[in-house]
C-alpha cells in the first residue's frame, strides 16, 4: 500500500469518525470513551507512515476533487512526512487524553466537539500533503475554521468569543497574504501546482515579495511578533486537549508552510531573507519569554512560551536560509536540523504540558496560578510527567529540549565562517539573545512547575484533587517517553531526518555524524564539539546510587518530620508563599520597557486595600488599534453616501451617466 493511500485513508477515516460522532446522540461518557481512542489509532498509523515516508521517494497523485482545471494534487516527500510524524505522535497522545478529559464534562456539546476535532486533524493532514495552491488554501482555512469552532466551545463567556473572533480574523488575513504569495508564484500562466511553482523563474524583486508575503501569511498563523496577539487569547480559551493540539501541532503546520515556500518553492535565493527571518525570530522569542514570565494564568503562560519557542524555530530557519544562500550547505543542514528537531521537541513537550494543565484544571477547576499549589502530593503522576516536560522545555541536558538548543547554539557559533563581515559580528550577539531567552524559559518553567505543583496548596478545594486516570497517564507517558528517547539518542533521529535535509538544502549530516558511535552527537566534527547524553545520564544515576549507598553504610542516621522554619513567629500558612505574580516580579522590574503595565496601588485610607496590576500587549496598541480606528473613520466617510434623500440618489445616477458619456467621447 503506497504511503499516499494510507495517509488519505487516515484522513477519510477521521472525517467519517467525526461525522458518525456528530450523528449518533450518545451520552457524553460513552461518546468520549469510544470515539477518541479510535481516532488515536489513526494518529498511530500516521506516525508510522511519517517514519516510513522519511525513508523513501516522494509519491504524488491527483484526486478527482477540486476545480475542473485545477484538481487536488497531493504529494508526500521527506519534509511533509516529517511533519506527518510530528502530527501523528502529538495527535495520538491528545486523542487518548481527550478520551478521559471529555468524559467528565469539559464544556460544550460533545457531538460537535467530536466532529470539529476530527475535521481539525484531517485538515491539518491535508495541509501537509497538499501539492497545489487550491488544496493548500482549502485545507489551510478549514483547519482555521475547525479550530475556531473548537476555541469557542463554551461561547457563553464574552472573552472567549472575542478571542475566537480575533483568532479567525488574523488567520483569515494571513490566508489572504498566502494567497497573494501563491498568486505571484504563478507568474502569469495560471499554473498553481507546486511542481510548476518550483521551476518558475522569478526575478529577485518578485521572489523577495513572495518571501515577505509568505513570512507575513504564515506568521499570522504561527504567531511571529507583530501578528502574535491572538495566540495568548485563543489557546487558553480552547479546552486543554485542543489547545495542546493547536500549540503543539498547528503552529508547526505554519512553520511547514514557511519552509515549503522559502526552501522548496523559492530555493532560498537571497541571504537577507535569512537575516529578516532571524531578526523576527529572535524578537519573537525574546518577546514570548518576557511575557511568559509575567503571566499568572497557567494556559496563557504556556501560550506565550509557545510564541517563544516558535521564535527560536524561526531563528533557526533564518540561519539555515543565510547559510544556504551563501552555499554553505553543511552548516545550513545543521541549522535546519536544529529547526526541525526543535519543532518536534516543542510539539512533544508543549503538548505534554498542556495535557498536564488540562488534568490540573479538571481536578481543581482552577486556572489561575494564584489559586494552585502543592499538587505534587495529590497528583503524583501528573506532577512527575509534568516535571519531565518542564525539564525538557527549559532545555536541560539529558532531555530533548537541550539537544535542539545545543544544535542551534553550534550553528550560531559556526556563523563567523560567513563571508559577510557584518553578519559575523551581529549573529554572535543574536546568540547571546538566544541564550538569554533559553535561560528565561528556564525561569518561566520553574515558576510554572513551582507554583502549580510545589509548596502549600493555596485553596482548600485543592485537597480533594484526584490524579489523572489511566488514559491520561498513557497519553502523557507516551509523550514523556518520546522526550527522553530523543534526548538520549539524538543521532538516530538526525540520521532518520537526513533525507529532509538533502531535499531542502542539498546536504545531510550523515557523514559528519558517522565519525563517532551513535551516542555522540557532534556538530560538524567530533573535535569541534560533541555531546553525549547517555554518559550524562549514566554518570548522574551512578553517582546518586553510589552516594546514597555510601551514606547509608557509613553515616546511617534517622529521618524525622518537623514543622518548617518560621523564624519563630508562629503558624505558617499558604498565603505566606510567593504568588505567581511575585515570582514574575523581577522580570517585570527589569523588562518594564517592553510591557504596558497598569498598576493600581491601594491608598492608605482604603477600607480593604486591594492591589492589582494588568499587563497588556503593547503591540495591540501599536498595530491593531490604529488599523481598527482607520477603518472606522473610513467607513464613517463612506457612510455619508447613503443619507436618505432620494434627490441625492438621483443625482448620483445622473452624474455617473454624464461622467461615463464624457469618458466615452
Amino acid at each position, binding site marked *: 500500500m503506497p504511503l499516499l493511500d494510507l495517509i488519505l485513508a487516515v484522513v477519510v477515516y477521521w472525517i467519517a469518525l467525526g461525522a458518525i460522532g456528530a450523528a449518533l446522540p450518545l451520552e457524553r461518557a460513552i461518546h468520549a470513551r469510544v470515539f477518541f481512542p479510535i481516532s488515536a489509532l489513526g494518529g498511530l498509523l500516521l506516525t508510522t507512515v511519517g517514519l516510513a515516508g522519511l525513508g523513501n521517494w516522494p509519491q504524488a497523485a491527483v484526486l478527482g476533487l477540486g476545480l475542473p482545471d485545477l484538481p487536488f494534487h497531493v504529494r508526500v516527500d521527506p519534509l511533509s512526512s516529517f511533519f506527518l510524524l510530528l502530527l501523528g505522535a502529538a495527535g495520538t497522545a491528545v486523542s487518548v487524553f481527550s478520551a478521559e478529559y471529555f468524559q467528565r464534562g469539559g464544556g460544550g456539546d460533545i457531538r460537535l466537539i467530536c466532529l470539529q476535532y476530527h475535521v481539525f486533524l484531517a485538515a491539518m493532514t491535508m495541509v501537509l500533503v497538499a501539492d497545489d495552491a487550491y488544496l493548500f488554501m482549502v485545507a489551510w482555512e478549514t483547519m482555521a475554521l475547525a479550530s475556531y469552532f473548537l476555541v469557542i466551545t463554551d461561547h457563553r463567556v464574552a472573552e472567549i468569543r472575542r478571542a475566537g473572533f480575533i483568532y479567525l480574523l488574523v488567520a483569515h488575513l494571513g490566508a489572504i497574504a498566502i494567497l497573494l504569495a501563491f498568486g505571484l508564484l504563478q507568474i502569469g500562466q495560471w499554473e498553481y501546482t507546486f511542481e510548476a511553482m518550483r521551476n518558475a523563474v522569478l526575478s529577485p524583486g518578485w521572489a523577495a515579495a513572495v518571501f515577505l508575503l509568505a513570512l507575513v501569511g504564515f506568521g499570522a498563523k504561527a504567531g511571529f511578533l507583530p501578528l502574535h496577539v491572538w495566540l495568548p487569547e485563543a489557546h487558553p480559551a480552547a479546552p486543554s486537549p485542543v489547545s495542546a493540539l493547536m500549540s503543539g501541532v498547528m503552529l508547526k503546520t505554519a512553520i511547514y508552510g514557511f519552509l515549503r515556500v522559502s526552501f522548496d518553492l523559492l530555493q532560498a535565493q537571497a541571504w537577507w531573507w535569512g537575516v529578516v527571518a532571524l531578526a523576527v525570530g529572535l524578537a519573537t522569542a525574546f518577546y514570548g519569554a518576557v511575557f511568559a514570565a509575567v503571566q499568572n494564568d497557567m494556559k496563557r503562560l504556556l501560550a506565550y512560551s509557545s510564541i517563544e519557542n516558535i521564535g527560536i524555530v524561526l531563528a533557526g530557519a533564518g540561519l539555515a536560509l543565510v547559510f544556504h544562500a551563501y552555499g554553505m550547505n553543511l552548516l545550513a543542514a545543521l541549522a535546519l536540523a536544529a529547526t526541525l528537531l526543535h519543532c518536534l521537541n516543542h510539539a512533544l513537550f508543549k503538548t505534554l504540558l498542556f495535557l498536564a494543565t488540562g488534568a490540573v484544571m479538571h481536578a481543581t477547576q482552577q486556572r489561575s496560578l494564584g489559586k494552585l499549589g502543592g499538587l505534587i502530593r495529590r497528583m503524583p503522576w501528573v506532577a512527575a510527567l509534568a516535571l519531565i516536560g518542564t525539564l525538557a522545555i527549559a532545555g536541560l541536558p539529558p532531555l530533548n529540549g537541550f539537544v535542539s538548543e545545543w544544535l542551534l547554539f553550534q550553528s550560531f557559533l559556526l556563523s563567523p565562517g560567513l563571508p559577510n563581515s557584518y553578519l559575523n559580528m551581529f549573529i554572535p550577539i543574536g546568540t547571546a539573545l538566544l541564550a538569554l531567552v533559553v535561560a528565561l524559559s528556564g525561569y518561566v518553567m520553574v515558576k510554572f512547575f513551582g507554583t502549580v505543583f510545589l509548596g502549600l496548596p493555596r485553596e482548600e478545594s485543592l485537597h480533594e484533587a484526584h490524579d489523572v486516570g489511566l488514559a491520561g497517564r498513557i497519553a502523557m507517558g507516551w509523550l514523556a517517553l518520546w522526550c527522553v528517547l530523543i534526548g538520549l539518542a539524538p543521532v538516530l533521529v538526525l540520521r532518520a531526518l537526513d533525507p529532509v535535509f538533502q531535499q531542502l538544502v542539498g546536504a545531510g549530516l550523515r557523514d559528519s555524524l558517522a565519525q563517532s558511535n551513535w551516542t555522540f552527537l557532534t556538530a560538524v566534527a567530533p573535535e569541534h564539539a560533541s555531546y553525549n547524553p547517555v554518559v550524562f545520564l549514566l554518570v548522574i544515576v551512578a553517582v546518586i546510587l553510589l552516594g546514597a549507598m555510601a551514606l547509608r553504610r557509613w553515616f546511617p542516621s534517622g529521618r524525622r518530620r518537623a514543622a518548617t522554619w518560621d523564624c519563630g513567629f508562629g503558624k505558617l500558612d499558604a498565603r505566606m508563599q510567593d504568588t505567581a505574580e511575585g515570582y514574575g516580579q523581577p522580570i517585570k522590574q527589569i523588562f518594564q520597557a517592553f510591557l504596558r503595565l497598569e498598576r493600581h496601588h491601594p491608598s492608605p485610607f482604603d477600607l480593604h486595600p486591594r492591589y492589582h496590576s494588568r499587563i497588556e500587549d503593547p503591540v495591540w496598541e501599536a498595530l491593531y488599534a490604529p488599523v481598527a480606528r482607520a477603518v472606522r473613520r473610513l467607513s464613517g466617510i463612506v457612510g455619508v453616501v447613503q443619507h436618505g434623500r432620494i*434627490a441625492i440618489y438621483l443625482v448620483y445616477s445622473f452624474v455617473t451617466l454624464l461622467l461615463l458619456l464624457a469618458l466615452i467621447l
Partner: protein
Amino acid sequence: MNGPLVGQVINLLAALMLLIAFAMLAQRRLLRLIHLFALQGAVLTLNTLVVAATLAQSHLYFSVVLNLVLKVIVLPMILIRLVDRLDLRADAESVGNLPLIMLVAVVLVILSFNVALPISELAGTITRGTLGIAMASVLIAFLMMITRRKAVAQVIGFLAMENGLFFAATSATYGMPMVVELGIALDVLVGTFIFGIFFFQIRETFDSLDTRNLESLKDRE
C-alpha cells in the same frame, strides 16, 4: 407633402417638444403640470402621425393610436382623478432657485446635441436631426425629477422621461418593433396604476406627499 416641408414640420414639432419640456421644468402648479404633460403627449402623437403618413411606415399607425389613447387621454385622466381624490388641486411647490436649474437644463441640451451628433449622422431616418432633442428632453425630465419634492411631480417627471424616450425611438429608428412597443406601453400603464396605489399608501402613512419625510433610512450616524 414633399420632402423638405416634412423635415421642417418634424423639426418644428421637435422644437415644440423641447419647449414643453422646459415649461414643465419651470411649472410650479401641479394641475398645470398635468396639462403640459398631456400637451407633450399630443405633440408626440402628432409627430408620429406625420412620420407615419409621409414616410409610409405602416406599423407606426398602430403606435400612433396607442400613444393617443395612452399618453393623451388615459394617463392625464388618471392623474387628474388622483389629484382630485388626494385634493391636491391647489397644490404648488416652490422649485429651488429657478435660474440655476434653467442654466443646467441649457447645458444639458448642449451636451445632448454633441453626444447625439455622431449618432445622427449614422441614422438612416430623415428625422435623425431630432435625436439630439429627444435625448435633451429625456435628460431634462431626469433633472425635473431631481429638483421636485412632491411625489406626484416626480411621477410626472418619470412619465415625461418615457415620452422623451418614445420620441427618441421614433426619430432614430421609426419606432421600435411592435412587440416591444406594446410591452413598453403596458409597462407604463401598469406603472402609473402602481404609482397611484403608492400615493394612497404614502398619504396613509405620512399624510403628506412630500418626499422630505421619506428620508429616515440612512447609514450616517
